[in-house]
């Protein structure tokens, strides 16, 4: 079998990207958190965060990343984001079913801003769902990257246990 793994780049590129990738994550988090006041939002920020893994794969090579990476972290991100998102939506229904699905139950009207606590997100579920979607997209895109990347490294049909799931045919 040919060596299908990606080779790492030179040490300069690796060191630079090591530092740069973390700034990327920080920038993505910034975009996610400030989604309701500045341009950007959950999807854009999540996509920026997911480039972290793409950068790592390109610069560090596959062997390093697959040894170091814990996929479960991204799975937790994915499901946490999804459940937060649909959970905020369902919370709009309220206990007595007075609202509707996706009701913005936490929003504060602009003229009442002075009455709420400073930590309360004034745009309500817009800000909360922004964060939820940001987490979900980070996890989802990274997992797609990792899965497709692993698939490239898989061999031909017979290797790696593939080649057996062809339905109920008895040949």
């Amino acid at each position: 079998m040919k060596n299908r793994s990606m080779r790492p780049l030179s040490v300069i590129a690796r060191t630079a990207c090591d530092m740069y990738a973390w700034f990327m994550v920080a920038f993505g988090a910034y975009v996610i958190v400030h989604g309701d006041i500045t341009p950007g939002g959950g999807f854009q920020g999540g996509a920026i965060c997911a480039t972290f893994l793409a950068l790592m794969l390109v610069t560090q090579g596959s062997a390093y990343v697959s040894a170091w990476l814990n996929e479960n972290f991204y799975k937790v991100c994915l499901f946490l984001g999804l459940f937060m998102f649909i959970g905020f939506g369902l919370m709009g229904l309220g206990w007595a079913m007075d609202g509707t699905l996706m009701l913005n139950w936490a929003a504060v009207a602009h003229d009442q801003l002075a009455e709420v606590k400073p930590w309360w997100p004034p745009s309500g579920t817009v800000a909360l769902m922004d964060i939820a979607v940001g987490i979900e997209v980070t996890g989802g895109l990274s997992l797609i990257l990792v899965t497709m990347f692993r698939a490239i490294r898989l061999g031909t049909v017979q290797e790696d246990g593939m080649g057996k799931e062809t339905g109920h045919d008895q040949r």
Partner: protein
Amino acid sequence: MISANLPYFVVVVLFLIGLLGVLLETNMIKIGIAIDVMESAANMFLIVLGFREGGYIPVKFLMPAGTENFVLPTPQALTLTAIVIALATSALMLSLIVVLYRHYGTLDVREIRRLRG
């Protein structure tokens, strides 16, 4: 007339390029690219529809002093949704192409023809 509506015609041309690519290309990757071009045409069409002369991005407190109106926000929201959908389907299409290549050893759609008759 033509020059004022130029963005619309660019969208039409882009859409036709994508459509002809899907219909005429034989390489699977190129067909995928053609579908992405069509998606870009649709997204660009939405954005172009939402442009207003002298408008600013629809974020209130970043608005400079001289401007008075915003571009339309709905097409931007729709485009955002459509882009993520396009991304998801592109990823799935590439995965299908990987599996097909593994089975058939070719990227040519004319040779992937077991389902006939």
